[in-house]
């Protein structure tokens, strides 16, 4: 599925307990419509389909919802606000990692940690993990996966471009191997934080 990547200054991901108007089977992207914008013509409308920010928010939200123990906090909303300081590629993976660390820091009860890993496939099929913006732009396909810490299960995947089924499996396996390093980094940084006290 093709989606446009915008690098805007601010991303907001909201995890609420409300449900979206589109039911569980719907795979369409977000729509927004505004009518009667222009005063001169008899009628006018603007239709916005598949805004990248909204879908990125939805991806991060779904990943967090799968991992946070929401049953311990009924009638409460947990808001995650992500601000892009600099974008050097693999933005979605970076957002996922930041969201996970923020939830741990806030003491929100979770059933596992999660991390994001991005893979890029260039035109001759070589796999590049954690690509830079330049590599992402020139790649044939860019795949981002969110993996959980307990069994390296796949929580979320967001892909753009052309790739075969075997390439997908290859990227997934590489991402699972790479997630080990991310989780080790989480553990080290949390141990460092707790050793100060």
């Amino acid at each position, binding site marked *: 599925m093709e989606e446009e990547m915008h690098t805007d200054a601010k991303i907001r991901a909201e995890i609420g307990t409300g449900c979206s108007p589109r039911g569980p089977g719907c795979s369409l992207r977000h729509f927004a419509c505004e009518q009667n914008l222009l005063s001169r013509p008899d009628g006018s409308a603007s239709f916005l389909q598949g805004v990248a920010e909204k879908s990125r928010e939805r991806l991060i939200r779904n990943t967090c919802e799968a991992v946070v123990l929401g049953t311990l906090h009924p009638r409460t909303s947990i808001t995650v606000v992500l601000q892009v300081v600099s974008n050097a590629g693999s933005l979605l993976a970076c957002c996922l990692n930041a969201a996970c660390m923020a939830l*741990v820091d806030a003491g929100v*009860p979770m059933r596992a*940690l999660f991390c994001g890993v991005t893979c890029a496939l260039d035109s001759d099929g070589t796999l590049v993990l954690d690509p830079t913006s330049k590599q992402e732009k020139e790649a044939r396909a860019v795949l981002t996966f969110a993996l959980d810490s*307990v*069994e390296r299960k796949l929580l979320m995947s967001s892909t753009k471009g052309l790739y075969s089924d075997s390439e997908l499996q290859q990227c997934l396996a590489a991402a699972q191997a790479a997630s*080990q390093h991310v*989780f080790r980094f989480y553990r080290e940084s949390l141990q460092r934080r707790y050793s100060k006290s």
Partner: protein
Amino acid sequence: MAEPVSVAAEYLAGSRARAARTVLGQVVLPGEELLLPEQEDAEGPGGAGERPLSLNAGARSRVRVVCGPGLRRCGDRLLVTKCGRLRHKEPGSGGGVYWVDSQQKRYVPVKGDHVIGIVTAKSGDIFKVDVGGSEPASLSYLSFEGATKRNRPNVQVGDLIYGQFVVANKDMEPEMVCIDSCGRANGMGVIGQDGLLFKVTLGLIRKLLAPDCEIIQEVGKLYPLEIVFGMNGRIWVKAKTIQQTLILANILEACEHMTSDQRKQIFSRLAES
């Protein structure tokens, strides 16, 4: 213990369940599973086939382990849900309490906790008190020492209240009172005039309230003061002058990040001036 034999087998090495005893005092992460002592005997080397035959197999002692904050029961194991250090306390009977000592700023009301609240609304017979949780707690006007229907306590909006929770769970609105089970105030009630209320992390409050904490003794030697600790991360301090109050507030906030030597240095410098 059966391990899934697949390409990703070596990646699962870090996620195998560990015995709770071996992890005490270490940092644990959400998602880890811990084995309780009686299970590790069953799952020890050669557990499946060579368990020693005991004559009174039915009388194996079942110790009751209490699962504290940060842990949840998951089958017959403990699942860690918060990041922190694993602690254990061995009481007289039973298997003890396991909990995770985590650092967090957000308070979640717990029954029996003493907290400092700010009165935000007065509606009929109930005061609404902000305790830093997701909902304001309710406080009845009859829950003060010596309060009757004729003799109402003098509580205004904006007052500070020191009380404890009698009802605090995730399904209901928290309720607090300012008397203990015998009807005596025991230090609870409206906190007096002046003074300064400030917020610190929950971990610091627990550290300051520990029985052998030297920080409070040292602070007491510095200036005469009144101090109230709320388990919701709020501290109320009052000293003779405003400057002394502010100095005390700054010291307590900074205590979290200082080592004991740095603290002693600062105290000695303040005592001289």
